[in-house]
């Protein structure tokens, strides 16, 4: 059998003055405090301001000088590139009217639970803008998306950059615990892909995972009712075979799609109303209440009923779906 040999790497007399490992002194770079305050930036407006902002944005993007959080949310990109076109659709096409903004907390976490409809998830994007533009502190809505979204190339990357993350309890709880406004559409594909004949009838609210996430983090649940999204793509049929071919949950037929081709993909200009309801507190229950399935189901039903009743009330107040 071989013997293990101890090989001294240095001669014995050099043992005494062994070199300590190099201590790295360079720590995080600290910006020196300027001795004189910098020059006051002159007020520049109009085109020059716009050009300067575009240049600043280009510089930040090309040198990678922007912050991204651990979910991949990129506020710089969202604010400059993603939101403006959506905001135009929000204001000019759907003419969204928002009420109940006072029910959104000024700070801290909250879970906004909405009804889902419209074949394509435009309602989620419009709700995000409704929160961003109407909240006094201009807060971002962090949305929870289906795993299908994150499997699709480009779409998945964009979804992460716009602040969405996978609809799973760890992610939701992490966001809520760090004090974010989180939006969830618990009906999922059942809600968004329901036929036009079942419009404004809430589907099953999943397994109540969102309720247990809110209870575990002690944040309020804010029911949110969206009217108008059902009319953008009236789904009158479903090509199941094609859907299965592409691995989609459904393949919709609307009066104009696929009949008019890409033109049929333009949403109908319905008039939208988004109402944020009164917050339902979840921190009044005792600890580990989220492990009581009956309590979770009851709370889920309460949220669902609140949204459904608000929808019916808003529908009776609404006149023409396209003129409002």
């Amino acid at each position, binding site marked *: *059998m*071989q013997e*293990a*040999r*101890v*090989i*001294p*790497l*240095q001669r014995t007399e050099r*043992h005494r003055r*062994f*070199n*300590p*490992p*190099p201590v*790295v002194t*360079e*720590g*995080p*770079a600290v910006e020196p405090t300027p001795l004189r305050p*910098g*020059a006051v*930036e*002159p007020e*520049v407006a109009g085109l*020059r*301001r716009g*050009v*300067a902002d575009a*240049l*600043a944005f*280009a*510089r930040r993007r*090309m*040198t*990678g*000088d*922007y*912050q*991204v959080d*651990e*979910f*991949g949310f*990129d506020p710089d990109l969202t604010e400059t590139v993603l939101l403006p076109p959506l905001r135009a659709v929000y204001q000019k096409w759907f003419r969204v009217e928002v009420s109940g903004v006072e029910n959104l907390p000024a700070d801290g976490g909250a879970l906004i639970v909405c009804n889902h409809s419209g074949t394509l998830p435009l309602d989620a994007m419009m709700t995000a803008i409704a929160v961003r533009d109407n909240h006094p502190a201009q807060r971002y809505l962090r949305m929870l998306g289906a*795993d299908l979204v*994150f*499997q*699709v*190339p*480009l*779409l*998945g*990357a964009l979804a*992460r*950059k716009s602040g969405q*993350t*996978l609809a799973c309890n*760890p*992610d939701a709880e*992490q966001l809520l615990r760090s004090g974010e406004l989180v939006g969830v559409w618990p009906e999922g594909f059942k809600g968004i892909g329901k036929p036009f004949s079942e419009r404004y009838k809430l589907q099953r609210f999943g397994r109540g995972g969102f309720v247990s996430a809110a209870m575990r983090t002690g944040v309020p649940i804010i029911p949110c009712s969206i009217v108008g999204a059902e009319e953008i793509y009236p789904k009158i049929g479903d090509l199941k075979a094609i859907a299965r071919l592409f691995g989609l949950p459904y393949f919709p037929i609307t009066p104009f799609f696929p009949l008019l081709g890409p033109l049929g993909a333009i949403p109908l200009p319905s008039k939208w109303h988004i109402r944020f309801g009164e917050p339902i507190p979840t921190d009044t229950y005792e600890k580990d209440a989220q492990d009581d399935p009956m309590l979770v189901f009851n709370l889920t039903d309460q949220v669902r009923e609140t949204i459904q009743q608000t929808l019916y009330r808003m529908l009776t107040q609404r006149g023409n779906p396209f003129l409002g």
Partner: protein
Amino acid sequence: MTPKVVLVTGVGGYLGGHLAARLAANPDIERVLGVDTVPPHRDVVRTLGRAEFVRADIRNPLIAKVITSANVDTVLHASLTAVPPGPTRRTALKEMNVIGTMQLLAACQRAPSVRKLVVKSTAAVYGAGARSPAVFTEDDTPKDISASGPARDAVEVEQYVRGFARRRPDVEIALIRLTNLIGPRVDTLLTRYFSLPVVPTVLGYDARIQLLHSEDALAVLEQAALRPGGGVFNAGGDGVLMLSQAIRRAGRVQLPMPAAAMPTAGRLLRGARLVDFNTDHVRYLNYGRVVDTTRLRTVFGFTPRWTTRQAFDDYVHGSGMRPVLDPSLLAGLESRVLGTRN
């Protein structure tokens, strides 16, 4: 409890070699033994001080003799290569990783002097995928991980370590899951990847990457050997960089390629002996991976000195990379439009 005799595996590598040097500089430790099949690098040898090098293979039962004869009380297993920097022979690597760990653990089990075991693992055990949570905690189980690959080795090694923990409950076991290492002096998969002149990525994907500075990795492993208590800890720098952002910060040119072309590109890079593009790595470049380091901060008591961004910038500066486009050019243009002078 300060360890008296420490055995460090994998001293031929960067982490093992520098760890042995750091421990040898600690006057409270009586003896530091470094084990590997290859001697440490010349630069490391100069810093090793009184650390002794034992040329032995941990796959060989001989290792048991080393442990018992030297009365080793702390074993620092730093030889696991779960994210190989370059193309390697898969079978040889798996042998070294899995069989080596099994032999080492078998030797430790028979050595009553062993009181502490520190295992360097990797965050790659969590896998990466569209259906994984955005932030992994220590309790998450492997998901979306290829059936054979270096990351799978790490999963198997962790299983053996858990088995060892059951059989030797008196030994404190610290399992450190490191995120990808980066730094000016370390040679890792990512340092090689970002030093490619044109960096291939998968079209339509952008990964969230979390990095750990190599000095922080050394510090956390050293502290794991010195501090009492064990446990499983994620170790990673604060904050996140997007893959595209990192490429821009390094001043490299990104080349998005369709997913179908990725295997060919991977084969080319492997053939050129540049970067190892295995399935797990491509998945990592698609989805990225972020770990929760709350437990490291609160329970373990270690806060990395470099954030992900600082570690990356240190690597970029230390490697002498310069951005293709000078940022001051755009900044100058911007201030001219605004009419400010600076």
